């Protein structure tokens, strides 16, 4: 089998910490409480999020890499880590002004922000909210 018959992906994990509150203003206080439970606490709470980014592309024979890690790191830092780390997702990330910042929606938002990475194809984004739950989005 030649190399071209293989599909190779590069995976990189990033970390940020942020606070959020799950609350839908279209629902009553009781419904919010019933649906979101502790996550509806009006003072918010936080997580150490881990973001796994997977990219595919040709392995450049000169470097052995699908993408230069420094390029990828600076892109992810600018698009996701800087705007999200040690922030309130509800208050400080415009995408969540009108959307509930569940990790499902967060995962889609991160995918949307990273889709334009110029040097390789974004295959999937997986977000771990805690070590016990994670969410993956691979585009529409």
């Amino acid at each position, binding site marked *: 089998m030649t190399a071209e018959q293989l599909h190779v992906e590069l*995976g990189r994990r990033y970390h940020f910490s942020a606070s959020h509150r799950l609350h839908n203003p279209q629902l009553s206080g009781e419904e919010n409480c019933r649906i979101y439970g502790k996550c509806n606490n009006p003072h918010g709470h936080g997580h150490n999020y881990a973001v796994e980014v997977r990219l595919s592309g040709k392995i450049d*024979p000169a470097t052995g890499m699908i993408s230069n890690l420094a390029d990828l790191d600076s892109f992810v830092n600018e698009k996701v880590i800087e705007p999200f780390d040690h922030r309130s997702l509800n208050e400080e990330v415009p995408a969540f002004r009108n959307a509930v910042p569940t990790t499902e929606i967060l995962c889609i938002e991160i995918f949307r922000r990273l889709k334009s990475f110029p040097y390789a194809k974004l295959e999937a984004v997986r977000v771990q909210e805690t070590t016990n739950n994670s969410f993956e989005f691979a585009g529409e």
Partner: protein
Amino acid sequence: MVYLTRKIEFSASHFYHNPALSPEENRRVFGKCNNPHGHGHNYALEVTIAGEPDPVTGMVLDLKDLKEILEREVMQRMDHRHLNIEVPELKGQIPTCENIARVIWHLLEPKITQGKLYKVRLYENSDLFADCYRNGAGART
């Protein structure tokens, strides 16, 4: 179809250097990884085999057999070795995660005779890995 995954860990040294580039370009492209004295990692390899469980044994393949294949093909070749110098399959290639995963795929695929090699995931550390699939293999695990 059932997907069975076995994990092994090995430690090896490597460095990144492309003789076709100038020393300055090598340093710019590869950064710290260009140090000619090399450095090392604890690699973690996850190998996933896809197949139907045998009706008699209930196994996709015997884990003892897989363990032996991984020992022979990967551990003996790469564990506590210098990947640039001691692994002929990597000769002429920069020993990145992507290239090592690809080499491991080619070493393992012909040896897997029960079930099919579905995926090779190689971690260089917990924040960096490469996945290898057969092109068009579709769904993921």
